[in-house]
């Protein structure tokens, strides 16, 4: 019974962990604006956490640079399953203008499975809310399968 209560409440409040892998800060600022009173994603239960161990949804912004690659892999290893990975903006997946750079370690798909990608450079906060809503839905389905 307790497990059911916990599952239900966890589905209603997915916690977000944000990792910057060499982003220009544009997407990071937009993600922060999503949790400000104007857009207020917290009314839908999303909450920014400080540690990957508490996270359900991981938001990755920026092309994966050589410096951040190891940190990304190490951080993702700490996120408990089931997890949903959201790629924010144009950078993480096709690398945007940085593709082919000597210090960019290719797309994010190399290191993990990406579930949702939000396009835009940078995406509007409304688009990020849509993306997070989709991520929460996917998370629910993943939990059910487990």
């Amino acid at each position, binding site marked *: 019974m307790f497990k059911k209560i916990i599952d239900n409440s966890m589905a209603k409040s997915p916690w977000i962990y944000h990792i910057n892998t060499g982003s220009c800060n544009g997407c990071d600022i937009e993600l922060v604006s999503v949790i400000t*009173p*104007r*857009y*207020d994603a917290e*009314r839908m239960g999303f909450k920014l956490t400080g540690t990957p161990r508490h996270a359900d949804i991981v938001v990755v912004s920026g092309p994966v640079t050589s410096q951040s690659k190891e940190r990304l892999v190490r951080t993702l290893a700490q996120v408990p399953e089931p997890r949903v990975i959201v790629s924010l903006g*144009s950078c993480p*997946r*096709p*690398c*945007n*203008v940085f*593709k082919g750079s000597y210090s960019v370690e290719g797309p994010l798909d190399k290191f993990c499975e990406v*579930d*949702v*990608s*939000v*396009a*835009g*450079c940078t*995406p*509007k906060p*409304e*688009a990020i*809310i*849509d*993306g997070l*809503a*989709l991520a929460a839905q*996917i998370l629910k389905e993943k939990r059910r399968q487990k």
Partner: protein
Amino acid sequence: MGLPFIKEAITQLFSKPSTEKYPLVKKEVSDGFRGKLVFHPELCINCGMCMRVCAPQAITRTIEKTEEGDRITMEFHMGSCTFCSMCADFCSKNSIELSKEYSMVVTNEDDLKVRGSFIKKAPPKKELSPEQLAKLKAAKAAKDGKAEEEFDSCPDA
């Protein structure tokens, strides 16, 4: 003296919250917003200018040869786009347009690609008159004969 800010406190108490009701009320974007790209293949002339000016190389072109002419497919990858609007600015035929659609959320990256294809016909072949043909033939024969002569005169051959 009274309580300070009492008027402000009362007006704030009855005012609307500043939070936007986004998923319930769709938001209108301002003019000049650069959102998802719209491609009009019927206007495109395949000059390739958009591909040249695209910084993230988000535009690809594939050319297939068909009976009617070359079938040209332009593919715009919105997942890789910076929305700088350079392609639309440089398009001489205004076949590229940036719409006001901002919500591009997908699970599969291929859904972000905007495609458009059209057929570009090759210019019709010129019909030559018999005299012109004869002239061409004579010129060709003369050239061949010259080449043969040179070949014969080569000592190693």
